[in-house]
C-alpha cells in the first residue's frame, strides 16, 4: 500500500500541473494570436485549405508550384503540399487527404476505381501538356549506332548495355518503381535480352544519362517528356512497336510502345463541389510544355519551387488572369 501511496504522491502534482495547463488553455482559448490575426486576413474570399499532392518528378513540381503560388498569393488559400506517390495520392481523394493532383499520366485502372466506380474523384481537364514515355539513349549512341533507334535491333546491342546489376543481359534503367511503366512486361513480351533495373528516382535517371553522355558510356533508359533535361542533353527515343488502342489494357501482356498522354488534372469530388475559388483555379489551369520546362529548369538550377513559380507568374500575368476569371 505504501508504494501505491508513493505513486499517488508523485502523480498528483503532475496531474495538478496538467489541470492547471488545461485551465490556462481553456481560459484564453479565444484570445490566441492565431485567431486574432486570421480574422483580419480572410475576410475577402473564403478559400480555406487546399491539399496538393506532390508526385516525385520535377515537371510535376513545376505545375504544383505555380498552382500553389497563385492559390496562395492571389486567392489567399492555405496550401498544404504532401509528398506522395501517384497511386497513394489517388487513395487520398477518398479520405480528404488530397484535393488536387496537378499532373496525371493516364492511370486507366485508377480512373476506373476512383472516378467511375467510387466517384470520389473527377477529371478536371487537361493541363495543356502532352506527355511521352519511352526508352531513350544518349545522343552519342544514336550517332554512332544509327539503327539502335529501331527497337527491333535492341537485341543486337544488348551486350553493350550489360552492367553488374543486369545479370549478363542488357540493362534497361528505370526510374522510381512508382512511375507509370510497362518495361518489365515489354522486355518479356518483345523477347528482349534485357533486364529492367530501377534507379529509384528521376534525379538518379538524369544523373545516369548525364554521365553516359559525358563519358560516352552506353545507357538505355526509361524517360519522358515534357522534361527540362532534354534541352541539356537531347536524348533520342528508341521506337518500339507502335501503340494501338487497347494494346496496353492487360498489364501483363503489353507488347507495344507507350501512348501519347494528354496530361490532365484530377481533383476530389468534394473539393470540386466545395465552390472554393481554388477549385475553379485548378479547372482553369492550363499551359504549354515550354512553360513547364522553363519553371522546371529554374527549379533544377537551384531556385526554390516557390521562387521559380513567382518568376513565371510575374512574366505571364495575362495567362494567370484568365485562370482566375
Amino acid at each position, binding site marked *: *500500500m505504501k*508504494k*501505491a501511496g508513493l*505513486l499517488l504522491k508523485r502523480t498528483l*502534482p*503532475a496531474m495538478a*500541473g496538467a489541470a*492547471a*495547463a488545461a485551465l*490556462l*488553455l481553456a481560459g*484564453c482559448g479565444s*484570445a*490566441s*494570436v*492565431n*485567431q486574432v*490575426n*486570421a480574422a483580419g*486576413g480572410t475576410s475577402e474570399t473564403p478559400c480555406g485549405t487546399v491539399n496538393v499532392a*506532390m508526385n*516525385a518528378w520535377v515537371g510535376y513540381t513545376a505545375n504544383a508550384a505555380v498552382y500553389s503560388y497563385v492559390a496562395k498569393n492571389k486567392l489567399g488559400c*492555405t496550401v498544404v503540399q*504532401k*509528398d*506522395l*506517390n*501517384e*497511386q*497513394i495520392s489517388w*487513395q*487520398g481523394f*477518398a*479520405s480528404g*487527404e*488530397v484535393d488536387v493532383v496537378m499532373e496525371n499520366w493516364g492511370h486507366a485502372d*485508377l480512373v476506373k*476505381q476512383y472516378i467511375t*466506380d467510387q466517384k470520389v474523384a473527377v477529371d478536371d481537364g487537361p493541363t495543356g501538356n502532352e506527355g511521352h514515355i519511352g526508352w531513350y539513349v544518349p545522343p552519342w549512341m544514336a550517332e554512332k549506332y544509327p539503327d539502335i533507334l529501331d527497337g527491333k535491333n535492341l537485341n543486337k546491342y544488348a551486350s553493350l548495355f550489360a552492367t*553488374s*546489376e543486369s545479370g549478363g543481359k542488357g540493362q534497361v534503367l528505370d526510374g*522510381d*518503381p*512508382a512511375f507509370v511503366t*510497362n518495361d*518489365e*512486361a515489354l522486355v*518479356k513480351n518483345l523477347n528482349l535480352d534485357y533486364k*529492367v533495373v*530501377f*534507379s*529509384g*528516382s*528521376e*534525379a*538518379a535517371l538524369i*544523373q*545516369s544519362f548525364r554521365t553516359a553522355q559525358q563519358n560516352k558510356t552506353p545507357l538505355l533508359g526509361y524517360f519522358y517528356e515534357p522534361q527540362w533535361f532534354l534541352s541539356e542533353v537531347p536524348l533520342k527515343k528508341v521506337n518500339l512497336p507502335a501503340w494501338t488502342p487497347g494494346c496496353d489494357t492487360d*498489364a*501483363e501482356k503489353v507488347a507495344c510502345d507507350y501512348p501519347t498522354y494528354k496530361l490532365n488534372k484530377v481533383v476530389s469530388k468534394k473539393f470540386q463541389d466545395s465552390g472554393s475559388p481554388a477549385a475553379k483555379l485548378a479547372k482553369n489551369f492550363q499551359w504549354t510544355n515550354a512553360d513547364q520546362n522553363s519553371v522546371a529548369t529554374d527549379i533544377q538550377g537551384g531556385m526554390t519551387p516557390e521562387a521559380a513559380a513567382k518568376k513565371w507568374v510575374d512574366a505571364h500575368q495575362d495567362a494567370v488572369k484568365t485562370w482566375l476569371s
Partner: protein
Amino acid sequence: MSTLVQERTTVQPAPARAPRRRPGKRTILLAGAAVAWLVGFLVLHGTSTLTLPASELTDLHRSLNQFNAWVAANRADNPVFLYVFTPLRAAVDAVANVFITTFAASPTGLRLPEIGWLGTVGLLGWTAFAAGNARVALLTVAVFTFFGLQGLFLEATYTFALVLTAVLLTLLVGIPLGILAGVYGRVAKVITPVLDFMQTLPTFVYLAPLALVFLIGPASAVIATVIYAAPPVIRLTAHGIRAIPENTREASDSLGTTGLQRLVTLQLPMARRTIVMGINQSTMAALSMVTIAALIAAPGLGQVVVRALQSLDVGTAVNAGLSIVLLAIVLDRVTTAASRRADPAAARNRRVSRRTRYILLGITLVLALAMVQLSRTMLWAAAFPKDLNIGPAIVQTVAAASQWMQTNLSLFTVSFRETVTTGILNPFQSLLTDTPFYILVAVIAVAAYALGGWKLAALTTACLGVIIYLGLWSDSMVTLAGTLVATAVVMVLGIIFGVAMGRSERVDQIMRPLLDAGQTMPAFVYLVPFLGLFGATRFTAIIAGIIYAAPVAIKITADGIAAISPTVVEAAVASGSTPWQVITKVQLPMARQTLALAANQGLIYVLAMVVVGALVGAGGLGYDVVAGFVQSALFGKGLAAGVAIVFLGILLDRMTQAAAATPVRKIPTTRTRTT
C-alpha cells in the same frame, strides 16, 4: 544460415581443423549437402529455377489483388467497416488531431498551433524535468530550440505529435495485453507467436493494406506505427510481471490478497521499472517508423527525408535526419531517466530532498505556463522566427562535402562496388538462383536435420514449401543471397570490433556511442549519401543492411568476449600465448555460442532491412513489396512477398538458433586443447 554453414564447410572442411577427432555425423551430413548442392548447380544449372518475371503474377497474386476491389466495394455498407474500421479511424484521427493542433498546426486561422514554439519548449522541458531530471530537461529544451534553428520546427512538432499519439495508443493497447500475458501463461502462449510475426513482417507489407482499409493520412500512419511499436512493451510488461520471485508472490498470497489486489499492490509496482523500459523501447520503435509513415501522408520530418531521397539531396536529408536522431536521443534519455526514477531503490539516495524538488517543480511549472501563455499571444513566440535559421547553412555544407566526395571518390567507390558485385555477390546469387529448387530444398532440409534433427528439417521444408506456393522462390533466393553476404560481412565486423571492445575497456567506451547512433539513425538518412557514392544497386542495399545490423552483432560479440573468465585468459597468457593465439585459440572458441547468437541477431536485423534496401536498388522480395505498394496491379504480389520474407525469417532464425545450441558439446575439447 544453413547455406552459410555449408559454405564454411566447403571452404575450410571441419575435419582438417580437428585432426585427432573423427568427423562427426553432423559434419558429414553438412559436407554431403554442400557437395550435393555444388554438383546439382554444375550439372543441372538453370533448370527448374521457378523464375517468375517481375511483371508476371500467379493466380494467387491475382486473387490477393481482389482485396483492393473488395475494400472499395465494402467500405460503405459492410458492418466491419461501419462499426469497426471507420469508427476506429475516426477515433485515432481525433487523438492525433488533438496533439497536432496543440503542438504543430491548427486547422484554422494562421494555422499556428495552440501552443507556439516557446510554449512547447517550456512545457516539454518541464515535463522532462518532472518525469526525469534537470539534465534531460535541459537537453529537451536545447534540442527543441535547435529544431527551430534548423528551420524544421513545424516538421519536428508534427513528427513529435504523431509519435506521441502512437506511443499513447501503444501503451493503451500494450500494457493491458502485457499484464494479461504476464498473469496468465495461456495468454502468453497465444500472444508470443503473434508478436514474433508482427516483428518479422516488414512494415511496408502492411502499409498498403492498412492504407486501403483506413485510407491514407495520420490515422493510418499512427495505426501502422502502433502495430510496429506494440510488441516491445507487451513483451517487457509480461516479462516484468513474470520475473517477480515466486516467494514474494507467495508471501503476498498468504496474506489473503485477491488477484486484483495482488496485481495493483505487488505485481505492477514491482514490474514498474521493466514496464518503463518497455515504454522506452516502444517509443524508439515508433520513432523509427517516421520515414516509412511519410509514404502514406504522415506529415513531418519523414516527408522531408523522402523528398530529399527523391531528389538525391544529401544536404536536406542529413539536416532532417539530424532532427530525427536528436528527437530519438531526447525521447530515449527522458524515458530512461523516468525509468531510473521509477526504480524504488533510486528514491532513497537522491541528492535533492523531495521537498526542494517539489518547490522547484512548482516554480518551473509557473515559468513554463508563462511561456505557454506568451506563445499564445505573441507572434514571435508562436512561430519560430524565420531569420534565426541555420538550416540552409547545414544543408549547403553537407551538400558541398558530399559533392566533393562524389567527384573525388567515385572512381574508387565504383570500382570497389564492381569488384564486390562481380566477384562475390553475383556468383553467390547465381549459386542460389540457378540451382534447381528441389536440390536446394533437399540440401537445406539435410542441413537442418544435421543442426536440429527431424523437427527442424520438417519446419524448414514447410517454410520453403510456403515460399514455393507463394510463387516467389527465385525472388526469395535473390533476397537470401544478399542477406547472407551482408550477414557474413556483419559477422566479420562483429568479430573484429567485438574482440577489440571485449579486450579493451577504452575501445568499448569509444565505440558504444557510435554503435548507438548507427542503431537509432533512420536508415533513409545514411542511404542518401551512399546512393550518391554507389548508385542504386544491390551493393548499396547490402551496405544499408550492414550498417543497421553490425552494431547488434558487435555489441553481442563484445559482451561475449568480455564475459570470459579472466583467469582462463591469464592462464593462456602465462603459458606463453601471443595475443593472436589468445584470441583465436581461447577467446573466440569460448565465445562460440555468443558468436552464433550474434549471427542469428545479425541475420534478423539484415532481413529487417530487405524492403528498405529495395528502395536503393535491391531486387528480390524487397522489390516486390515496394512495387506492390506503389503499383496497384502488383498489390497481391507485394503482399505475398511480405509473407515470404516472414517465412524466410523464421527459417533463418530457427536454423541459426539450432546452430547456436549444438556446438556446446565441442567446447570442452577445444578448451582442454588450448589450456
